[in-house]
C-alpha cells in the first residue's frame, strides 16, 4: 500500500515514534560511521577506548585517596572509583555527543529528511559501545582484586539504561538549544567538567548524605544530580550490601532525571521543525 504523507504546519508530529522506528537503520549507520571514523589516523587506534577511562580513573582515585573519602571495609578504593568512573564516562560522552549532534551534522539536517532525534540517539549508541569496553575494564579490575560481584549485578542493565536516559534528556535539551544559541557549545564542556566534581565519582554519596557538616539544602541539591542515582545503583550492583542505596537521595535523583527526560524530549520535538531554518 502507498503511504500518504501530509505536509502542513505542525502535521509531522502524528506518527513521530513510528517514524523514528522506521529510521532505525540510519541510526545504526550513523553510529557505525562515528565509530569507524573515530580512530582513523590515530597511532594506537581502539586502544584509546581503554586509555581514556583509565586516565580519568587514575585522577579520580588520586583525589579520593588524597581527601580520604570513605571506603567500606573490604572494597578496594580503585574498584569503588572505577564503578563510578565508567558510568560517568558513559554519561559525559553521550551528553556531549547528543548536545553537539545537530550542529555537527548540519549538512545532513539541511539536505535530507529524517526524524531529527536519530542524530542524538546515534551518538548515544556510540557511547554505549565505549561503555562496553569500559565494562570489560571494570570486570578485569574486579578479577585482579579477586572481588566478584553478587547477584545484584544482574540489575546493572537497569542502571545503564538510567544513565542513558539521564544523558539523553539533558543532551536533547542541549542539542536543541545549541541550534539556536551557539553559546551552548561552550556551556556543555563546563557542565561536564563541573559535573565530574559534584558527582560521587571520587567519593561516595554517603560522604554527603551521612555527613553532619553538610546542610540539608545542599544534600537536596546534590541529590538533584541525575547521575547520583545511576552511580549509587552501579555501586550497589557491584558491591551489594557494602554500598546500600540512600533511598531519599536516590528517588530525588531518579525523579529529576525523568523530569529532564520529559522536558528534553518535549523541547526537542517542539523546536526540531525549525532546525533546518536556523542551523
Amino acid at each position: 500500500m502507498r503511504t500518504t504523507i501530509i505536509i502542513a504546519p505542525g502535521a509531522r508530529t502524528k506518527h513521530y515514534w513510528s517514524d523514528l522506528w522506521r529510521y532505525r537503520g540510519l541510526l545504526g549507520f550513523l553510529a557505525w560511521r562515528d565509530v569507524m571514523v573515530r580512530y582513523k589516523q590515530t597511532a594506537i587506534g581502539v586502544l584509546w577506548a581503554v586509555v581514556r577511562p583509565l586516565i580519568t580513573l587514575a585522577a579520580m582515585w588520586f583525589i579520593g585517596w588524597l581527601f580520604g573519602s570513605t571506603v567500606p571495609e573490604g572494597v578496594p578504593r580503585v574498584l569503588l572509583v572505577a564503578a563510578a568512573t565508567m558510568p560517568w564516562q558513559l554519561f559525559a560522552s553521550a551528553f556531549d555527543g547528543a548536545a553537539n549532534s545537530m550542529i555537527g551534522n548540519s549538512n545532513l539536517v539541511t539536505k535530507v529528511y529524517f526524524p531529527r532525534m536519530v542524530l542524538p540517539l546515534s551518538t548515544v549508541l556510540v557511547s554505549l559501545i565505549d561503555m562496553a569496553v569500559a565494562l570489560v575494564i571494570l570486570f578485569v579490575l574486579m578479577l585482579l582484586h579477586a572481588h566478584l560481584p553478587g547477584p545484584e549485578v544482574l540489575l546493572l542493565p537497569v542502571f545503564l539504561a538510567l544513565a542513558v536516559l539521564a544523558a539523553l534528556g539533558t543532551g536533547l535539551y542541549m542539542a536543541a538549544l545549541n541550534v539556536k544559541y551557539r553559546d551552548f557549545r561552550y556551556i556543555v564542556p563546563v557542565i561536564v567538567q563541573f559535573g565530574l566534581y559534584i558527582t560521587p565519582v571520587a567519593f561516595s554519596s554517603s560522604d554527603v548524605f551521612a555527613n553532619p557538616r553538610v546542610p540539608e539544602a545542599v544534600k537536596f541539591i546534590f541529590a538533584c544530580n541525575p547521575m547520583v542515582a545511576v552511580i549509587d545503583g552501579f555501586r550497589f550492583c557491584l558491591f551489594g550490601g557494602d554500598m546500600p542505596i540512600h533511598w531519599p537521595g536516590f528517588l530525588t535523583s531518579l525523579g529529576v532525571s525523568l523530569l529532564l527526560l520529559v522536558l528534553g524530549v518535549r523541547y526537542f520535538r517542539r523546536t526540531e521543525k525549525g532546525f533546518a531554518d536556523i542551523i
Partner: protein
Amino acid sequence: MGTPIITAEGLGKRFVLHGQRERYTALRDVIGRKARSLLKGGGPDTVPQAFWALKDLSFTINEGDRVGIVGRNGAGKSTLLKVLSRIIDPTEGRVEIKGRLASLLEVGTGFHPELSGRENIYLNGSILGMSRAEITARFDEIVAFAEVEKFLDTPVKRYSSGMYVRLAFAVAAHLEPEILVVDEVLAVGDAEFQRKCIGKMKEVSSGGRTVLFVSHNMAAVQNLCNSAMYLRHGQLVMQGDTPSVVAEYLRSAETSTRIDLAARDDRQGSGAIRFTGFSLCDGAGNDLAAAMTGSPVVFRFSFTAPTGPLRNLHLAMGIDDIYGQRILHLSNETTGQVFADATGATHIDIRLPRCPLLPGTYGFTLFSTVNGEIADYLFNAGTFHVESGDFFGTGRLPAGDQGSFIAEHSFSIA
C-alpha cells in the same frame, strides 16, 4: 497518467530575518535585548523582518510526470523542494504526497572523507533512505555506474573530484522511490558525466516514476521534463508543457535583457546617430532574458538621429567571448544590406534564425557609420547571456570548453 501524486494547496513559507550577520542567535544578544526592552518599558526595539520565500502556492503533479521547475535565483525553487522533502516546515498551506519521496538536493550528502568508497555507498544510501538490503542488491550497479571499482577501499578523501561526484550521483541514481526530487545537481561533473546523469534520469523517469527537477539548464529541462513550473518571488507564474513554460520564463519582463545605452559618454563619432538601447527579442519580437542556443534571436538596437536624415547607415556588431576575444562580427556591409535611407526609423534588428552561440556570457561592441563617416562607436557596449537550448533535438550540446559556436552538421559513412 492523470492521478495526482502531489497536491499542494496555498503553500507558504516565511523566513524571519533578524537583520544580523550571524544566522544563529547568541544568548548574549537575547539577554541584551530583553534587558533593553525592560529598561525602555516598551516592546522589542527591532522588529524582525519577515520574508515569504513561498506564498500561496497551489499545484498538482500527476503520477509519472517529469516536472521541471524554473525561475531565477531566489524564486523559491529550493525552498519548495525542501518543503516537499520535509526538511523545512511550511508556515501555511498543505501538501499531500502519495508515495515515497526521495530527494537529492546535493551530491554526496553525508559522505565522509575518511571512509572508503564502499563504506560511503552504504552510509549515503542509508541517509537517502535505502535499507541495507536495497543497497546490497544494487551495490554492483552503483559501482559500475560510478566507475570506481579499483578504488572501492580507498578513503574518498583521496578521490579526484570527478570520482567523488560520480560515486555520489551513482548512489542517488539507484534510489527507487516513487517520487524523485532533484536540485541542480547536474551542474557538477564533466560534460560526459552530465550526459550520463541525464540519461540515467530519463531511464528513471521512463519507469513511470515522478520526477521533480530544478535546473538553470534549459536544455536539460526541455530534454528531460514533459511539463514545467515557473516560479517568481515564491509564487507560481505558470505551469504547463515545457516549451511554453521555458519560453515564458525567458521572455518574462523580470528577466529581460535591456541595456540602456543613452547615458554612455565614452562614445566616439560624429553623433549623426546615437544608440540608446539594446535588447534581446525572440522571433516574434517579445523581450527575452537570454538567447537560447538553436532558437531564433533578435538583437535590437534603438537609436535616435539628432542631426537629421540618415543616409547610407552601416552598423556592425562585434561579439566577444568572456576573455574579450572577438568571435563574431555581424555587419550589414557584409550582408549587403546597408540602409540607403534610415530616416525616421527607431531601431535596427539583427536577426539570427538559429542562435549559434554556445551557452555563456558574451560582450559586444557597436560600430556605425553614416555616409561613410564614423557616427557612433561604443566599445564594450554591454553583455548578454545565452542559455543552453536543444539545437539538435538530442538534448546535447558540446561541453563548455569546446568552443563558442555550434553549426548545423551531419555525419555519414560511405
